């Protein structure tokens, strides 16, 4: 079931849905909640290594070595250079009920500048919502930290789920984190299969 503004406000009021900080009540619109650009960023860097290798469990350089961490104050500008991947997160910390998931898209005003995102956040999630933004425009775009750049649509399921029924890699994250794909459990199985064939 798609949740509209009044239903979202009821969930917030009852404490089932937590959005902190909700700087303006008007962020909750008729169909979605506007979310703001957070203060922390991880910028992709071009270094001496040829690739970010998440296929090599033992010898690869960590993903973090391909990103630079930086922070801006709310109200400062952040420059999105063309084709540079920027990991950032929403200013708002969100805790979803166990039967509500969230779909995140850019607000159209920012899509028109060349930024796009499409992401699903699972029921029960808690943390700032991660955004992987790339400016596909050929011109740098400067955006004020704290601007309402994304919108979240909420959907209620018929049955509740348990977010922690499997081990989670990202719990209560409050700033962007680099990919932990190399920690995926199937990596070991795939490694064994590869070694079996190579023998």
């Amino acid at each position: 079931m798609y949740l509209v503004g009044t239903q979202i406000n009821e969930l917030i009021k009852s404490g089932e849905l937590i959005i902190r900080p909700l700087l303006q009540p008007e962020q909750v619109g008729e169909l979605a909640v506007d979310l703001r650009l957070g203060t922390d960023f991880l910028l992709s860097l071009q270094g001496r290594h040829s690739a970010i290798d998440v296929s090599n469990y033992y010898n690869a350089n960590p993903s973090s070595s391909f990103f630079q961490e930086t922070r801006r104050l709310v109200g400062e500008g952040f420059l999105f250079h063309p084709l540079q991947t920027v990991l950032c997160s929403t200013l708002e910390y969100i805790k979803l009920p166990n039967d509500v998931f969230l779909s995140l898209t850019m607000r159209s005003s920012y899509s028109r500048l060349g930024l796009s995102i499409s992401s699903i956040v699972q029921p029960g999630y808690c943390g700032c919502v991660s955004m992987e933004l790339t400016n596909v425009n050929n011109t740098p775009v400067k955006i004020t930290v704290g601007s309402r750049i994304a919108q979240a649509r909420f959907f209620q399921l018929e049955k509740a789920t348990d977010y922690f029924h499997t081990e989670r890699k990202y719990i209560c994250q409050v700033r962007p984190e680099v990919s932990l794909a190399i920690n995926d459990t199937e990596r070991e199985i795939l490694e064994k299969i590869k070694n079996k064939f190579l023998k």
Partner: protein
Amino acid sequence: MPKNNFIVVTSLSASLESYSFNPSLSDDLIYKLIENDYAIKFNYRLIQITLPRYFVHDYLSNVVLYHELGHFIDLKFKIFETIIVNKIIDKTLPYYTKEPLKEGHIIQRYYHCMEHFADLFAAQYIGDCTNHVLNYIAFNARESQTHPATSTRIKIVNDFLNKKYSDAIISEIFKETKSRTSQQLEIRFVDLPTDDFKNFVPYELRNISELHSIFITGWKFWKEEKNEVIQKHGRDNAYKVVNNLIEKSISNYIVTNSWNK
């Protein structure tokens, strides 16, 4: 210099033991020299504190920054400079021992008193949090030329928090702090429940006292014996969770305050 014209800046060091206060830019001397030679006037003063890069997001460990700030206050108001001139040199300051101080111990006692003041300054805001960190990094450490024994430091902080002012050094610190700063050393934190951390959400802090107290709440959560978060998600995850939630509680407070002003 008005008290709001000081800016705390932190630098990150590769060393794991590099919590320190750098006094070089906190004194007026360097600013006066620059003004005289180059006619540049500075409206702000810097308080430089160094912390290990590895611990940049480790807020439970970073409570010791309050202690480092205490060193700045001590230096700025010349609290222990006064004590040492008035009391230690003429050997009238009773200390841990009733034996008279030997000449070689004077500098050591001076350093130790500075550490006690910084500990008490921190304890005003974050209670016994620095004790927890001391127990991790310097458990049972004996006294050195620059630092008192860990057990002595913990006792003096606990005495202060329990309002036992019988120790001579605490009395002297109280007296001289009041005299030099016109402010009393006092408890400035409040008790916050750990519920929000257990529910994986940051606090909505309402005032400065609660802002300081978030570190105490973090430590209380981390040291809880039957901590369900640790039991269910493991110590590594729980440690990350509590640090993240402290960070977000503080940044939300700053953002919300700025927004509402």
